[in-house]
Structure formats: structure tokens, C-alpha cells
């Protein structure tokens, strides 16, 4: 894009190529250009390495020890040899549970949620009836029976009880397979060595568990969705409103310029500070509201403010400056002639804004909002401070539930010293990155469509 030095050609001796001084200058130029390119490649290499590192952790060999081999379990019910545990029906699975786990544990599961709607397996009907009449009825009293998948999960977790005793990264597994097999046979003689993709449907569907073999991210995914939803519901209208005010209504006075400067400065405040603000205001000061206890304790048994709604509002404040700044740019890009045309037809300012400015700015506003939501989806630090739960296995049921989100799950698994938790952290990272990439792609498509129309 910059003009090149004039190209000298013709009969006269070419000073640009013959003079040693010029050659030296050119060589130096080439060296520096190469150095710049190298620096740029460093940045690219960093991204590639990062992705490879994550992939490297998401797949690989794992040595698994089962307390009860699944093949034997199916056979113990009289099914032919080689029947897969997965193919069994709910009745069979419950029978297995009955045979293999203690009655006490069975009662506990049944009080959490019944196995069948029409009969009880472990629990005495009279005891459960009494419990349901008592002041604190167990969840089973109001919930319908467990699904087959749910029972299957229990069988795997409690009966098969797979323990991962060792894991290897992808490249190790591919290139040193022989060595690993020898190692595993020596150190974990009872274990089965399988090549495992840590990302699987089960990983996405299963709730959190202390056992990495069966742990999943369902709880965290639901948590993330709830939090982002609240964030969006709060920050989108407020952000767009603020942008409209600043672009269309604000006069050039001191107050408005302070607001503008302030928004720009807020965009640079570290996210963890927002977390502390959320902790002090939403979690603590507004505890009565955010814990849901103003609804008569109906929301959940949490009774403190470390809930989805606190997290949502905290992230809402965090992305508000981003939404405002982006929306302002989108509104500014709407040509002034549209406004004048609207006004000339006698519409009021608000009518003009609503009927002409906003529809034209909408794609830009949405693009900015999607990017801001992507930011909220990946935020970790403020939510740690606001108090995401370290370990919950139940899906959030509403804005007043305790919660965990995907990035928090990644953080906790990464912080565990055992290798297998690193593997599921990597798998969770893949899921998170895919989600973010989808959002970004949506933003890019929106932007392209918009710019095509504007041309």
C-alpha cells in the first residue's frame, strides 16, 4: 500500500543494483523485514502451540481399572456372554443395583429420586410416606422417576466403578505406544489400556463427579447458559439505551463528557475488580434479593447470595462498557441524512431513532453484543470471587440456584494435581472454544451481511 521507491531502469548504469552502498542498504532492509516476519510468526506459533497443547490433552491412552467388569455384570443377570452393559433396559439395571450396592446407599438414591413411579426398590413405603409428610420432604416426593440413562449412570458410577490409574497425552500415546503398554502392564497389572477421547457425549451429558472417568460438564454448561442469559437480559437493554442517549440525546456538557470518559475507563478495569464489586453488592448487600429468600425461600435451599443472578449481574456490569462502546459506533455509522429525513417528515426525535436509526444500527449492535457475550462466557476470575460453587452435581433450576460455569470447571480441574483431571480440563476447554468459535462466526457472518448491504 505504500509506494515503492521509484524503479530505475534504462540505459544508464543501475545505481540501485550496482552500488555496494545501495546493496548494503537493501540487505539490511531484507534482514529487518525477515526479523519482523519472524516476530509475527511467533504470535501465530503461539496460537498453534496452544491449540496443539489442548488437543494433546484431550485424547490419549488411559489405564482403567474396573471394580466389576461390565461384561460379567450383564452375564450375571443371565444374559448371553458378550452382552453389553449399555444395551440393558432399566429393569435390569435396577436389578443390578439391587444386587451390588448396599441397602443404605440404595435408600439414599431413592430418596433423591425414585427408581419407578409405581413401586419402591430399597425404601420402605411407610418410611418414605412419613418423610414426605414431614417438614423437610426429600426431593423424591415431588420428582418423577429416574430415567434409564440416569440409572445407567448410577450403575457405572457405583457398580462398575471405573478408576483411571494413569493417563498419557496424545503424542505420547501415538509415538511411544509400546513403551506405555509395557509400563502399564508393569505398574497396573489389573488395568485395561484404552485409547480414550476425553471429549464424548457422556462427557457433555454427565454431571460433575469426583471421578474423572465419569465426570462431565452438564452442570457447568447449564450454569453458563443461565448466567449468560441473565447477563444479556440485563446488559443489552441498558447498554443500548446508554448508547442511544450518548449518541442521539446527550448535549456537549460536562456531565455527559464525564459519563463518556468513565465508560472508556471502565472498559479497562481488571475483571477481578468487578468480581469484588459483585461480591460486595450483589452477594452481600443485596443478599435478600439475590438468594431468592424474598420469595419465601422458594428458589432453592441456598440461602446465600452466591447465586446465578449475582453472577449474571456482575458479568452484566463487566460487559456493559463493551456493549455501550460498540453500540455507539454502530449508531454513529448511521448516516445523518436518515435522521434529517425522518425529522423533516415531522416525526419526533424518539420516532426517528426507533424507526430509522435503530433498525439500521441493529446488525452492528448485535455483532458487538455477541462479542461481549463471548467475553462473558469465558470470564473466570470475577465468578470465582462472586462465589461459583466448587462442587455441585445438580443442574441449576433458576436464577436463584447455586451454580458453576464452564471456565470455573476448567480452572478447578486444571488446579488438581492428578493427570486425569488435566485431561478432562482439556476436553472442557475444547467444548468452550467450540462454543466461542460458534459465537464469533455468528458475529462475523452478521458483520459481513451488514457491510454488504451498506455498500
Amino acid at each position, binding site marked *: 500500500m*505504500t509506494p*515503492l521507491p521509484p524503479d530505475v531502469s534504462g540505459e544508464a548504469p543501475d545505481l540501485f543494483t550496482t552500488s555496494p552502498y545501495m546493496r548494503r*542498504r537493501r540487505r539490511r532492509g531484507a534482514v529487518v523485514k525477515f526479523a519482523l516476519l519472524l*516476530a509475527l510468526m511467533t*504470535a501465530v506459533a503461539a496460537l498453534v502451540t496452544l491449540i496443539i*497443547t*489442548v488437543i494433546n490433552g484431550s485424547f490419549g491412552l488411559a489405564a482403567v481399572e474396573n471394580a466389576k467388569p461390565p461384561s460379567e455384570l450383564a452375564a450375571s443377570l443371565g444374559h448371553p456372554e458378550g452382552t453389553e452393559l449399555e444395551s440393558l433396559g432399566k429393569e435390569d439395571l435396577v436389578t443390578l443395583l439391587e444386587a451390588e450396592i448396599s441397602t443404605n446407599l440404595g435408600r439414599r438414591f431413592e430418596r433423591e429420586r425414585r427408581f419407578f413411579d409405581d413401586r419402591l426398590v430399597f425404601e420402605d413405603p411407610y418410611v418414605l410416606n412419613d418423610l414426605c409428610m414431614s417438614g423437610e420432604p426429600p426431593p423424591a416426593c415431588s420428582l418423577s422417576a429416574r430415567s434409564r440413562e440416569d440409572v445407567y449412570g448410577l450403575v457405572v458410577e457405583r457398580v462398575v466403578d471405573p478408576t483411571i490409574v494413569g493417563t498419557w497425552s496424545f503424542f505420547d500415546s501415538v509415538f511411544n505406544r509400546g513403551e506405555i503398554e509395557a509400563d502399564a502392564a508393569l505398574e497396573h497389572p489389573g488395568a485395561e489400556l484404552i485409547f480414550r477421547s476425553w471429549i464424548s457425549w457422556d462427557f457433555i451429558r454427565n454431571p460433575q463427579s469426583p471421578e474423572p472417568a465419569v465426570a462431565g460438564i452438564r452442570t457447568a454448561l447449564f450454569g453458563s447458559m443461565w448466567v449468560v442469559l441473565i447477563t444479556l437480559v440485563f446488559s443489552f437493554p441498558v447498554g443500548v439505551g446508554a448508547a442511544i442517549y450518548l449518541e442521539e440525546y446527550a448535549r456537549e456538557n460536562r456531565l455527559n463528557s*464525564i459519563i463518556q470518559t468513565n465508560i472508556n475507563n471502565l472498559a479497562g478495569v481488571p475483571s477481578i*475488580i468487578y468480581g469484588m464489586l459483585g461480591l460486595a453488592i450483589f452477594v452481600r448487600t443485596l443478599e435478600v434479593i439475590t438468594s431468592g429468600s424474598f420469595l419465601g425461600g422458594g428458589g432453592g435451599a441456598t440461602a446465600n447470595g452466591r447465586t446465578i443472578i449475582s453472577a449474571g449481574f456482575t458479568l452484566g456490569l463487566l460487559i456493559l462498557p463493551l456493549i455501550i462502546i460498540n453500540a455507539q459506533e454502530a449508531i454513529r455509522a448511521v448516516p445523518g441524512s436518515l435522521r434529517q429525513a425522518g425529522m423533516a417528515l415531522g416525526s419526533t426525535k424518539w420516532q426517528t431513532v426507533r424507526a430509522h436509526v435503530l433498525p439500521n444500527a441493529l446488525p452492528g449492535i448485535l455483532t458487538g453484543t455477541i462479542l461481549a457475550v463471548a467475553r462473558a462466557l469465558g470470564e473466570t476470575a470475577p465468578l*470465582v470471587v462472586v462465589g461459583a460453587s466448587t462442587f455441585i452435581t445438580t443442574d441449576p433450576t433458576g436464577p436463584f440456584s447455586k451454580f458453576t460455569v464452564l471456565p470455573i470447571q476448567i480452572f478447578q480441574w486444571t488446579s488438581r494435581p492428578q493427570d486425569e483431571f488435566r485431561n478432562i480440563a482439556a476436553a472442557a476447554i475444547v467444548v468452550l472454544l467450540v462454543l466461542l468459535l460458534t459465537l464469533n462466526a455468528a458475529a462475523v457472518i452478521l458483520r459481513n451481511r451488514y457491510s454488504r448491504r451498506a455498500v
Partner: protein
Amino acid sequence: MLLFAAAALSILTTVGIVFELGKEALLFFRSAEATIGEFLTSTIWQPAILDFGIWPLVLATLTTSIIAMIVALPVGLATAVYLSEYASPRVRGVIKPILEVLAGIPTVVYGYFALTFMTPLLRSILGVGAVEIFNTASAGIVVGILIIPLVSSMSEDALHAVPMSLREASYGVGATKLDTSLRVVLPAALSGITAAFVVSISRAIGETMVVAIAAGAGPKNFTFGEDSLFGYILNPFVAGETMTGHIVRISGGDLSYDSIDYNSIFAIGLALFVITLGLNVVSRRFVARFREVYE
């Protein structure tokens, strides 16, 4: 009016931050266990025995930030110069999205990267004995990678704002592309680039997840004279907890309100807020100055 309220909410946010951080920090300094003098001078942070000196945390923050800047400045600036002065539109079309992706990756992922890639790499280069599993060097390098896109995009904006006529004048007197880029365009964009640097430093200081995961989980307390200056105090390959890392670790546990721990993290938060806000204001001044020159 409703729209004004929406805009004014931003003011309320700032006031909220200052008020809440200030209030809790004040409670902290008013309490019998901590004094502002100790907070600002002591080199021991050990809440269990009521030692509250912020220096171990500040030192770790400085270490990671300086290392981050050593990585991010040259790479980010060189990327910006290449993209703005040398690159063909096609190369730009490839590189810009890559930088955007790099900027969009959540910081917790960078934390994972630091712990599972950078630390083992450092340990295999420098020896397992020389590098601890948690260390500020690895965290700092990865924070540096994380802010490369920020440095390069802000610097590139600054370089773009330099009028074409300056470049053409430079070529006109016989300068090469190299001379033009480094001796004419770069100095002309200096205030904008400085702004980029200042914002990046502020970002590095405020960065949380990478240091919380990879830098260490306990303050690196030290005593001048007793501890070796280069072997321990300034050694980046030793574990150290930064200000942000400490806030995350303390608030991640079960924290009871009105405890000295609760108040102490707000004092740290206040210090952090003041530092980063100050840096951002400074950077905005630089940008304002450089706009005055060319518009």
C-alpha cells in the same frame, strides 16, 4: 430520561467500585491487626499470624508483568510494523483474524497452557531443579502471549494514523522502506504506541487466571539480607503469588464476611484498581495528544 439513567449507571458502577473497595479497605486499616504503614512497607504477607505487608504480592505482580512486557512489546510492535508497513492485503487478511482469535481465547485456557506446556518447556530447558512447578516466569511469558494482540492492534492503529505524506516525503529524499518505517513512521506514532504499552502493562497487572493457575499459591515472603536477592527474591523461576492470584485464592474458599481476610482482599483490590486506573488514564492522555497532532 430512562436512557440517561442507563448511561448514568456507568457512573454508579464506578462509584460502587470506589465506595465498596474503599469501605472494606478502611475497615481493614482501622482494625487492630493491620496498619497502613505495615501494609505499604512490610515484606511479609501471612494472614494466619496477622502479617499484612503487600510487597510480596506486588513483587510477584511486577515480576510477571515485566516478563510479560518483555515478551509482548517486541513481538507485538514488530507485528504491528509488519502488518501496517510491509504486509500485502492477503497476509493481513490471514494474520488479523489469527490475532483476533488469540485475543478471544479465555484467560483460563492460557492458564492451562502455562501449566501444561510452558512450565514443562522451561523445566526441560533449564533443568527441573532450577524451575519450580509453579513459577512466575512461565505465568509471565504466557501473560505476554495473551497481550500480544492488544499491543499489536493498538500500535497498528497508531501507525495507520500517520499521514501518508510523511512516508512519501521520506521516499522522496531517497530513504528505503526500512528507514521510512523505523525512523519516520515509528517516531511519528510514538505517543500512540506508548499508549498501547501503558494499557498493556495495566492489562498484565490485572490479569488473573494465568497467574492464579501457574504462578503459585502462596505469597513469596522475603526478608532483605536473609534471603538471597537473585537466588530467591528476584528469581522468576520460584513460585510467587500475585495480587490478583491472592484475591482469587482467598475468595475461592469459604470466606466469612467481616473477617480480616475478607477485608484484606479489598485493600489489595483497591491498590490494584488505583494502579490500573492510573495507567489507563495516563494512556488516554497519550492518545489524546497524538490525535491533536494529526487531525
